């Protein structure tokens, strides 16, 4: 190797300093000097603002390398992702005015912590800071070896990291740093500013960062629950002991159920190109094994690998994630097209990083490459000029392939003692408070000891007797919207004139008077002769603009009162590539979602539900008066050839069996009992005869249920996977012939409308043919939608909102494992055709 020409102009040189990141595990901090431009990528550990155990502090190293006195200024500060061992001591250095930056490219804190604005994730656990601390620590890299004060410090730092990060951004902002919050703000101006050093942000895309944020959000909820559970089991535990019980040597094997990998996958991938040489840095990006249960993210990682490969070879490639097995592999080495120089950052006491697999891969290529690692080399400086790169290291040797996990004693976790759950009598007792009894609702607050217990609360409420509202002469409270419950602000929409034709003059007047008397927001001026949603949806959007607090839209009337949208459930590109097929709807479906569109892009921002009139005032009244279900009883019937429905039904609360047809038929003895709070039907349906649903294999093809099986009174929620189960007209959308009229189904001809006429809170189903998965684990086609709906509903969401949220969840997972053109088309159809009938709130 030829030494660098000492006469070379320093302004033509690139110097990459892998900083000594101290005695702890993990940690990343890299100072890059491209000529006279300086870039600091990540800030090591929180404690590295000061020297520790013979390791120089980060500011000491920066000052020496940049030949500056404190406060040190760098041209660009990059925080790749929201982990403690990358944000490190930067918040402290900024707070102490020891570090400034002209520009900062940082992961957006809301996305990095997966926080949706307005979502109060932590408040339920605020009374026990141990829970919050433990959950915060679980999103960090697992610190198996830490004990004593070091562990206590790590836990304290984890809890405060988010606040310190936000404060750091506020302080930098005040001092005039131009901050780009990655994932939220455009990086274009940054790219222009650093075009002279060839800054290119390879990724990840905003879509990728958002997908990761959603996973972080979900798994953070799980971490909180998990943390709360461990203290519920043993209230005497301190946080450190609880952490050691969870974070055991095989903790990495459950990465998929903790937020860490998703946080790593938000790492900003930057490429610099200076004087004809390229350099790549990617934080903790898990290029080799994403370890998240998300097809879209896995696809995105593959795409990013291709993009990195297209940039290769590099003069230097920092192996991400401290050279973990999930970051680098032989395959990735090959994709780097002959890159000759590799390095990674890790603290001195690192154990499992760099991983044996990565080290073996590098060893295989030892004659072609050079490899540096700060856990054994301390501060490493690589200088690039016209000749071969010059390597300086504080200690150790180049190409050290020795793993760190040789003979490491690993603490054995203590077993979790099982304690009997205290009964309420041993501790607190339930306390019930009637806090309000004004207006339409009685508000009751119950405080129940947070232990394993069951409390039954019965509240008897008598009418106040003063609820008659005068003014119209009609019985204006004849229709008690929501059965008198407090509802969120909803926009009810209809065409008064068209409704008159369907349910009668007096009945319509009574209904409209009732809305007004109960201060509901009603827009009843849609044109009576509209036949397409394009005529009516813009008028509804205007109303939504005037009522920005509306949480949902409820359409009152069938398709002949307020037209539904005939929707191509496929994007045009996908339709063009679709092979000939026998989908009975040609992937065209009816959809009401256009009425929840606030921003004019044709997609809903809020849930939409519809109460079809079925030419019956009684149906409309009963559906509107739904008082909302409980959750003490479930019922269901599935086709024998749909075993996936069993898994979903088993997750519903309450008791009650899932009947199976072929064995179950409509006239069996004992009779099928659908009087339940939650009803799940996974049967065959038909668009002509909606009065019955079928299973398979029954003698003479007897139906599983028909209208005779519906209870006289029903307050529950029904969710179906039956084809055309929620079709309320006689013509599927794909069969509509212009100029030909569309007939309406009624409560006497439709199970869906029959349920609504009996008071159902909601009937959720498809407007077209549904597709079921038949291959285990049944996590594609209709399966994930069913599960997501019931999950959201049983988390307390009203049915319309639960369906809306389920669809977003479904979008996040699409395509669910099966990724061919036709399979993807089926999932688009599932997504777009599900609809909520009934009040839904």
């Amino acid at each position, binding site marked *: 190797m030829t030494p660098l020409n000492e006469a070379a102009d320093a302004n033509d040189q690139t110097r990459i300093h892998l900083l000594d990141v101290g005695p702890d595990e993990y940690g990343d901090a890299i100072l890059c000097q491209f000529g006279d431009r300086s870039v600091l990528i990540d800030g090591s550990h929180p404690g590295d603002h000061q020297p520790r155990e013979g390791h120089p502090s980060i500011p000491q190293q920066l000052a020496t390398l940049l030949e500056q006195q404190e406060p040190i200024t760098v041209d660009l500060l990059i925080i790749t992702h929201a982990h403690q061992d990358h944000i490190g001591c930067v918040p402290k250095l900024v707070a102490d005015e020891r570090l400034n930056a002209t520009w900062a490219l940082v992961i957006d804190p*809301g996305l990095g912590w997966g926080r949706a604005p307005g979502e109060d994730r932590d408040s339920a656990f605020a009374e026990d800071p141990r829970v919050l601390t433990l959950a915060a620590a679980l999103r960090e890299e697992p610190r198996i070896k830490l004990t004593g004060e070091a562990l206590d410090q790590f836990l304290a730092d984890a809890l405060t990291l988010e606040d310190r990060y936000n404060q750091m951004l506020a302080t930098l902002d005040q001092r005039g740093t131009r901050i780009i919050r990655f994932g939220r703000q455009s990086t274009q101006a940054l790219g222009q500013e650093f075009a002279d050093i060839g800054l290119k942000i390879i990724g990840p895309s905003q879509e990728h960062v958002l997908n990761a944020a959603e996973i972080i959000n979900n798994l953070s909820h799980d971490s909180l629950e998990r943390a709360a559970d461990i203290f519920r089991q043993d209230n005497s535990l301190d946080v450190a002991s609880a952490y050691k019980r969870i974070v055991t040597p095989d903790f990495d094997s459950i990465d998929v159920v903790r937020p860490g990998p998703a946080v790593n996958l938000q790492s900003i991938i930057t490429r610099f190109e200076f004087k004809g040489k390229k350099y790549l840095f990617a934080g903790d990006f898990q290029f080799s094994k994403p370890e998240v249960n998300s097809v879209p993210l896995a696809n995105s990682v593959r795409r990013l690998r291709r993009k990195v490969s297209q940039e290769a070879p590099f003069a230097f490639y920092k192996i991400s994630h401290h050279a973990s097995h999930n970051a680098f592999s032989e395959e990735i080495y090959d994709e780097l097209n002959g890159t000759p120089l590799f390095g990674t950052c890790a603290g001195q006491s690192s154990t499992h990083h760099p991983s044996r697999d990565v080290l073996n891969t590098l060893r295989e290529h030892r004659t072609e490459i050079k490899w540096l690692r700060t856990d054994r080399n301390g501060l490493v400086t690589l200088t690039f000029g016209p000749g071969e790169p010059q390597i300086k290291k504080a200690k150790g040797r180049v190409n050290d392939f020795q793993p760190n996990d040789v003979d490491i004693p690993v603490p054995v976790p203590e077993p979790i003692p099982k304690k009997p759950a205290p009964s309420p009598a041993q501790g607190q007792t339930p306390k019930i408070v009637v806090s309000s009894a004004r207006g339409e609702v009685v508000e009751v607050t119950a405080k129940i000891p947070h232990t394993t217990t069951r409390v039954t609360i019965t509240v008897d409420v008598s009418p106040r007797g003063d609820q008659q509202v005068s003014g119209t002469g009609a019985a204006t409270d004849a229709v008690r919207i929501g059965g008198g419950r407090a509802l969120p602000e909803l926009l009810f929409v209809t065409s008064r004139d068209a409704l008159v034709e369907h349910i009668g003059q007096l009945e319509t007047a009574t209904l409209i008077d009732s809305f007004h008397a109960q201060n509901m927001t009603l827009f009843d001026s849609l044109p009576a002769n509209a036949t397409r949603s394009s005529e009516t949806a813009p008028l509804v959007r205007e109303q939504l603009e005037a009522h920005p607090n509306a949480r949902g839209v409820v359409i009152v009337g069938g398709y002949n009162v307020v037209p539904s949208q005939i929707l191509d459930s496929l994007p045009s590109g996908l339709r063009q590539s679709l092979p000939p097929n026998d989908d009975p709807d040609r992937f065209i479906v009816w959809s009401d979602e256009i009425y929840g569109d606030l921003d004019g892009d044709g997609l809903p921002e809020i849930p939409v539900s519809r109460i079809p009139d079925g030419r019956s005032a009684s149906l409309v009244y009963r559906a509107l008066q739904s008082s909302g279900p409980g959750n003490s009883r479930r019922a269901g019937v599935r086709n024998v050839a749909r075993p996936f429905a069993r898994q979903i039904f088993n997750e519903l609360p309450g008791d009650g069996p899932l009947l199976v047809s072929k064995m179950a038929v409509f006239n069996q003895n004992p009779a099928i009992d659908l009087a339940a709070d939650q009803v799940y039907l996974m049967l065959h349906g038909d668009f002509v005869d909606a009065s019955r649903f079928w299973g398979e294999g029954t003698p003479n093809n007897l139906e599983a249920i028909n209208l005779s099986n519906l209870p006289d009174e029903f307050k529950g929620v029904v969710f179906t996977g039956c084809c055309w189960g929620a079709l309320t007209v006689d013509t599927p959308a794909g069969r509509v012939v212009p100029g030909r009229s569309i007939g309406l189904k009624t409560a006497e001809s439709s199970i869906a409308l029959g349920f609504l006429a009996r008071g159902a809170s909601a009937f959720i189903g498809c407007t077209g043919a549904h597709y079921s*998965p038949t*291959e285990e684990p049944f996590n594609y086609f209709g399966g994930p939608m069913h599960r997501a709906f019931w999950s959201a509903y049983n988390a307390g969401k009203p049915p319309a909102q639960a369906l809306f949220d389920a669809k977003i969840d479904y979008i996040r997972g699409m395509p669910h494992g099966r990724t061919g053109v036709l399979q993807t088309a089926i999932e688009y159809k599932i997504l777009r055709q599900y609809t909520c009938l009934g009040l839904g709130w």
Partner: protein
Amino acid sequence: MSKLSREELQKIIAEDLPGYRVANEDEGSVADAPVFNEGINANAEAETPDLSDLRVKYLREKYLGGGAANLETEDAPENDSAPEEDPTEDEIVAVTPDNPAHPWDRGGRPKATVVSAKEKKVIGQQG
């Protein structure tokens, strides 16, 4: 057109769905009413955006608020969500019971079945 011959399809259906057979053309498709085939989506008032756009819209709204910039446009990434091109694409075929019920019995109508041409098995069913 079809990736699998009718015989191959029939064999798969017989194995995976005993009691069913591939519907004959004269039995019609799963549709029994005349289908408006001319320009199938000519009636459609709207189409669905790409999955990538759907995903960004809803997650952006949740985490960044409605007014946040769509950075995908300027970054112009490849479409993460594009279906994989697979020369052994699946098929949706109509199947009908071996012993059909009375023609008026709607429960016995032909039904769509998803057959994986690659795996040579039924992977999904209508209903």
